[in-house]
């Protein structure tokens, strides 16, 4: 029988622990596929976050480091400075990257640290059971915003791409989603480009992936994917927010 679909080689055989309907599996696959296609598994080192993807180090077959909460870009900075020839990526959630690790995110971006950051935004803390995230939407009900996120006391969600795009430092800042085939294809391209940028020495590339959390959103997987279209994308519009090389070429 002809093989028409295979697991990327850069993923191990360990069964993923993610909830049914969670999109982490798709995003892991897209990252691994990019690594496979670029033939860089042997020189890639990934940095796992604290959050749902904390055990990503078991799922990628490249060398892996588990970082403290929010510190992945700092750890990646150390790895890249020590081994400029290697390919270093971080894989982080919204609490990790946009709350506790915001300083590390902003400063690695402004230094144009030559690393690839995969930022999974599902608007909630998944691992700890559904607390309000820096990206939870206004009015969103979570365990710690039981009456809905009240922006007068809890503040507004942070649009990470828009904010980072104001910096002169970073090379490539883009937002994609994985809630339908078309968006997954787009995400696949963006993630590969974020790795290529690093290989070509262009610098800091961040791909925000708008993602779902059926378990903590209290929805069926399908409803959660629909919610991305209805609620998430209107607040977090998809698109390229910064692409320095493309901008230079256009000039």
């Amino acid at each position, binding site marked *: 029988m002809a093989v028409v679909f295979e697991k990327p080689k850069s993923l191990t055989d360990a069964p993923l622990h993610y909830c049914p309907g969670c999109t982490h599996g798709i995003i892991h696959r897209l990252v691994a596929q990019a690594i496979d296609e670029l033939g860089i598994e042997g020189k890639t080192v990934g940095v796992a976050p604290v959050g749902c993807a904390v055990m990503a180090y078991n799922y990628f077959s490249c060398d892996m480091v588990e970082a*403290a909460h929010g510190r992945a870009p700092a750890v990646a900075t150390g790895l890249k400075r020590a081994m400029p020839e290697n390919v270093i990526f971080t894989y982080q959630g919204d609490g990790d990257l946009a709350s506790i690790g915001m300083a590390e995110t902003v400063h690695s971006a402004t230094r144009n640290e030559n690393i690839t950051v995969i930022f999974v935004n599902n608007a909630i803390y998944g691992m700890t059971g559904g607390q309000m995230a820096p990206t939870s939407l206004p009015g969103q009900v979570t365990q710690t915003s039981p009456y809905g996120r009240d922006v007068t006391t809890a503040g507004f969600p942070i649009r990470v791409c828009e904010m980072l795009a104001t910096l002169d430092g970073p090379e490539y800042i883009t937002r994609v989603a994985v809630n339908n085939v078309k968006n997954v294809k787009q995400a696949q391209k963006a993630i590969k480009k974020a790795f290529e940028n690093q290989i070509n020495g262009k610098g800091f590339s961040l791909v925000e992936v708008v993602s779902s959390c059926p378990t903590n959103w209290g929805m069926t997987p399908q409803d959660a994917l629909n919610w991305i279209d209805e609620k998430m994308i209107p607040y977090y519009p998809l698109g390229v927010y910064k692409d320095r090389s493309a901008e230079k070429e256009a000039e």
Partner: protein
Amino acid sequence: MSEKVLMKGNEAIAEAAIRAGCLHYFGYPITPQTELAAYMAKRMPKIGGTFLQAESEIAAINMVYGVSSAGKRVMTSSSSPGVSLKQEGISYIAGADLPALIVNVQRGGPGLGGIQPSQSDYFQATKGGGHGDYHLIVLTPASVQEMADLVSLAFDLADKYRMPAMLLADGTMGQMMEPVELPDEAPNMIEKPWAVTGTQMKREHNIVNSLYLVPEELEKTNNERFERYKYIEENEARYESFMMDDAEICVVAFGIAARVSRNAVVEARKQGIKVGMIRPITVWPFPKKPLAEAADKVKSFISVELSMGQMIEDIKLATSCKKPVDLCYRVGGMIPSPEQVLESIKKAAGGNE
């Protein structure tokens, strides 16, 4: 050894680290260790190394974690409030069994405290400092020469035992200038097969990690680490013994407190008091054995500290409280004078007559 040069303690640490093969430095500005970072900022770009002023102490220690994961020698330096901020990262470094050097040029605390010398981070340095069961190897220089010498030893021990090492200095040691012979031997680099240098598709992936969700596994890693610590306690404790042969009073002091105490011991001897000093060079592992032996000979101990009585607890433990231990101290950036230490010695001598 190379020629003698006149250097500040902070600069001697920096140059010694470079000579020990440390080509990666991450820090955040804080007094009184600034000369160290400034020296690194000047030197590292010239020798293909990394000097990076991080956005915070927290980021700096996590950059250290990254470089160490890659198997390279790496360091950070700070002073007390900054070292508190690093504790999360230090716990992860210990938990992931990574070597690294952390320099603490201590200043007075707690809180923002002051900028003058202190030894009040003794508990933090010797008992772990962050969360979880772990230790650092803690070396305490008492001269600019030792600042340099202990740096390469710290890197060697950290690599050998796969654990973080700390150089516990203070504002005086960092700021004072003394002639120093810088080491010029090739650094003693060892293989690090655990490092995440990329599989090159030739081996299984390496994972640097401190997470163990299965309690039996986490317990096992803790037990294994403490087996290592036990070996270190038995084999790596370092100290200097001064005029202890016939001593009836034993002064215990490290760093700047030992420099002051030495003068007091010499003066007391002139006055006919049989006093000596044990100067811990490592405060973890603490030199328990010489202190336990001294406890069988001397009448009493004096712990001389720039803290409110921290090391005194380790002295009591090491000596099983066999003999009284007095405390002679100044804090807040103040340093005991030789006269103050001499008074304590005289009091101890008088009290036993």
